[in-house]
């Protein structure tokens, strides 16, 4: 039995006019995983997802869904997949019910599934309201309901929390975790913010300028976390200038921050500041955020490019 839900092998793609290129994309999403597909805006996330769904044709390479080549199993394979690509595709002049009914008819699932999925996303009280009158967040929820309706084995969600308020984002996160845990649904979710999905995902792929620059478990990404030293002195502006002569210090609000290799560096830095005549009011070490790792990984690649 194949254990991979999505696999792209050396996929290349470029748009004729804009020239955005996907080069040698090798994504692997294991069955049962929640795969966070991360990258800054314009890095190629949506293009990659469109390629994975056959909405774009690759110039080179192979795309496999559940171990079988997409071109050979589409469109039948889509009965096992729920999708939400960018903004949800909704017919504004129709009600929420009619929008779901269109998908329900094609996927040949019971009509009851419509109210079940609307309840899942908290829209069961606006079943007959025209979608044109929905807020952005409600539309996003309805898009999720469409993706979830057929009880899919695989969910591909492109920035699903766009337009959702913080509590909505939390609800979606909890819903996806529950679906993954209880029903074993494999989820691929794209975002440009690691902080938004770091509590959700088991695996991470980072894409930048059309190339996959990191792909592993979230645990492996956490290993890149380095300790961050926070210092508060009587004159932070002068002190940061002083430290910058030998260390990568920077001023962040009321603190000086610098990445250190280990706790043993702390005493040396404190001594240096005191000898130079600065009074230290606060000194503590924290773990660098995953967001900083994400930014530093994508920044490094950008500078190289």
């Amino acid at each position, binding site marked *: 039995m194949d254990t991979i839900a999505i696999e792209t092998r050396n996929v290349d793609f470029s748009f004729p006019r804009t020239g955005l290129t996907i080069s040698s994309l090798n994504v692997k999403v294991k069955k049962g995983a929640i795969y966070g597909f991360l990258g800054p805006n314009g890095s190629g996330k949506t293009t990659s997802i*469109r390629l994975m*769904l*056959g*909405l*774009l*044709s690759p110039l080179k390479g192979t795309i496999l869904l559940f171990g079988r080549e997409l071109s050979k199993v589409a*469109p*039948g*394979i*889509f*009965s096992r*997949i729920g*999708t939400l*690509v*960018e*903004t949800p*595709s*909704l*017919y*504004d*002049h*129709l009600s929420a019910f*009619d929008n779901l*009914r*269109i*998908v329900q*008819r*094609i*996927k*040949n699932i019971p009509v009851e599934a419509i109210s079940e999925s609307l309840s899942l996303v908290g829209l069961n009280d606006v079943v007959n309201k025209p979608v044109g009158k929905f807020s952005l967040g409600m539309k996003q929820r309805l898009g999720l309901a*469409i993706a979830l309706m057929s009880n899919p084995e695989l969910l591909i969600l492109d920035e699903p929390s766009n337009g959702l308020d913080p509590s909505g984002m939390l609800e979606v996160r909890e819903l996806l975790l529950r679906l993954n845990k209880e029903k074993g649904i494999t989820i691929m979710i794209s975002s440009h913010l690691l902080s938004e999905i770091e509590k959700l995902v088991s695996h991470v792929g980072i894409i930048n300028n059309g190339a996959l620059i990191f792909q592993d478990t979230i645990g492996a990404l956490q290993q890149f976390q380095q300790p961050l030293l926070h210092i508060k002195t009587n004159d932070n502006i002068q002190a940061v200038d002083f430290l910058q002569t030998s260390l990568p210090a920077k001023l962040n609000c009321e603190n000086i921050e610098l990445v250190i290799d280990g706790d043993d560096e702390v005493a040396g830095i404190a001594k240096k500041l005191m000898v130079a005549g600065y009074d230290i009011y606060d000194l503590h070490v924290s773990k660098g955020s995953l967001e900083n790792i994400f930014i530093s990984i994508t920044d490094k690649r950008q500078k190289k490019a």
Partner: protein
Amino acid sequence: MHLQLLQNELVKTKNTPAFWITLIGSAFLPMMLGIAYLNEWVKFIPNTSENPWLDYYARLVNGLCIVTPLFICLVVALIFNVEHKSQGWKLVFTLPVSKPAIFIHKWLLVAGIIVLYYLLFLLFSIVIAMILGAIHPEFKFLQNRPDSREVTLAVLKSFACNMGILAIQFWLSFRIKSVVTTLGIGIAAVITGLLAKDSTHAHLFAYVDPFKMLGYFYRPHIFWENYVWVSLTYFIVISVLSYFDFTRRFNG
């Protein structure tokens, strides 16, 4: 699956301008002519031995030559605009339905709407003539019957003459996202067709063919005239090309 796809296509037109334009478009000519008959009713009283339906349908078919191409441009653009506006293609193409099936059912919807337009046109034309006959018995609509064979052939011929335009507008409408652009191209081509209708070889331009039917009832006529063949040839060639474009290259 065919029934579900057809039901979906019908649901998508619910509450859209396409639905209302079909209704209004089919009633437009009989209503306008009805108003003209009422305004100058003495002028329209037939001679003793004359069947009033002949003159009535001669006028209506002339109107049909001008209104139908415009109706087709508008309704086809509006039907595809439902998908463009809602970014519906990316949903449609990620459902377990083949592209040929999507193409064929969109075509069936468009063809069905145009057939409905003609049927409603016939219905409204009969109802309005009956009302006119009831208001002014001098019109003698109630004492006579229309030549149903001739009227049916005229309507079928009008449909055949518009099939070339239908195929071209169908292709343009799924390829071009802007409804204004598709409609603009269609209207400009229809106007060009109307202006160029008397030029040599003008019938080779699909947008001229419906206008070749002007004066249909006032002259001897056969069904299979050259321009009907031209329109049907356009229809077959363009439909085949657009089918391959849709199923192999079009991604929404």
